[in-house]
């Protein structure tokens, strides 16, 4: 038996049809990550503020939400929304989802919900770090509870938690590779597809790996720079 020597062919996976696939995969990864990050921030903020409100049912909801979604595997959650959304979401929502890209939507919901549970905990700890008298001072001039959070508490809390938030964003980007399991044609999915057409899995996954690394570095760098140069660091 003669040994077939593996010859590297980087051009193959970077150009032509296969290159296009990789590019499409990259764009989809960026899209699902960006949409999920925005939604997860929104949801995380709401859940965190619920937890700190004085309304019992909101506190219970928030506690249940964070514990449940942080402590179940993301892959299971992805399958849950993909296979089970019909049973839990209202019919109108499902009909609407099917008209969109259903796989994308299910993946997005799973990533959003899962990550928002972690983000909520980060935001909550950020809010805890703000001196109590800030809320009192803003309520004392007539701002409502929600206005106080919107204009006084949260802007300060977010500055404090930028580093842990970045790591949540990076987790989300990396975790987004799991959505290939429900057929979302993201970067990982496409790398896999290129591999199965070309048998050059080493190159395609190396490229995918480097792309993930690059995205993470860019995101991290951008936010850090923004924080450093555009947000005033606060001292009390």
């Amino acid at each position: 038996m003669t040994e077939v020597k593996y010859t590297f062919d980087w051009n193959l996976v970077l150009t032509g049809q296969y290159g296009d696939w990789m590019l499409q995969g990259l764009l989809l990864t960026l899209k699902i990550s960006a949409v999920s990050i925005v939604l997860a921030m929104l949801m995380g903020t709401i859940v965190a503020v619920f937890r700190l409100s004085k309304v019992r049912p909101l506190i219970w909801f928030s506690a249940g939400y964070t514990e449940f979604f942080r402590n179940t595997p993301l892959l299971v959650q992805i399958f849950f929304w993909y296979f089970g959304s019909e049973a839990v979401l209202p019919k109108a929502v499902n009909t609407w989802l099917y008209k969109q890209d259903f796989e994308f939507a299910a993946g997005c919901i799973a990533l959003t919900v899962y990550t928002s549970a972690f983000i909520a905990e980060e935001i909550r700890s950020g809010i805890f770090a703000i001196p109590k008298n800030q809320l009192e001072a803003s309520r004392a001039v007539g701002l409502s509870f929600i206005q106080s959070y919107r204009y006084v508490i949260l802007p300060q809390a977010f500055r404090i938690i930028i580093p842990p938030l970045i790591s949540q964003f990076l987790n989300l980007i990396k975790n987004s590779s799991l959505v290939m399991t429900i057929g979302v044609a993201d970067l990982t999915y496409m790398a896999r597809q290129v591999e199965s057409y070309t048998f050059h899995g080493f190159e395609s996954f190396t490229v995918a790996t480097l792309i993930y690394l690059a995205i993470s570095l860019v995101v991290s760098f951008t936010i850090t720079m923004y924080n450093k140069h555009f947000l005033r660091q606060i001292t009390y």
Partner: protein
Amino acid sequence: MPVIEVNKLNKWYGDFHVLKDINQTVEKGEVLVICGPSGSGKSTFIRCVNRLEEYQKGEVLFNGQDIQAKSVNVNQLRADIGIVFQQFNLYPHLTVLKNITLAPLKVKKTPRNQAEENGLALLERVGIHDQAHKYPAELSGGQQQRVAIARALAMRPQVMLFDEPTSALDPEMINEVLNVMKDLAREGMTMLCVTHEMGFAREVADRVIFMDSGIIVEEAPPDVFFNNPKHDRTKAFLKEIL
């Protein structure tokens, strides 16, 4: 009608009876100074007036209206009754001017240019017009407290509460804050001031109140209060602080 009327006000923290049958009537333009030993309930009392604290018995009337009535909009009430704290509590992420304009913009929906114009005028009035675009951390304590006063005044309150506004300040900065407060008093602002600045009390107070253990022990115009206190506890207290 008095601006503020306090009738048989009682408050408990759990089992601890902090305020015991407090009665007060404050007419428009009156300046009250409240003093007393630490823990006597001075802060708790004035914080009940703008509902930063809830009370359990008695009533506080603002322009004749019970402030804990269901129909009262607490945010409106607080816009009408400003408060200045011992720790200035400015918003550290906003400039001085934005500290002042935030509530007018968001609560009163004042147009931005008008809110800013008004804010700058207030800064002028408290003597720090040139610091408008700095951040609180860049200001001295006395300047920060004057911003805090301007921030409360921006809502055009009918009453101002002060809770030891000069106790956190270095001695050389106390007067710049007291002068602003004296001006306010002379311009006819209704004021309830917790302070141990007896010079201030002598100069502008209409009445001085001495509290101890949740009770109003003594109450008199400043000359009587300082020269002729009736109660031993007041005398002992005055001896200690003068």
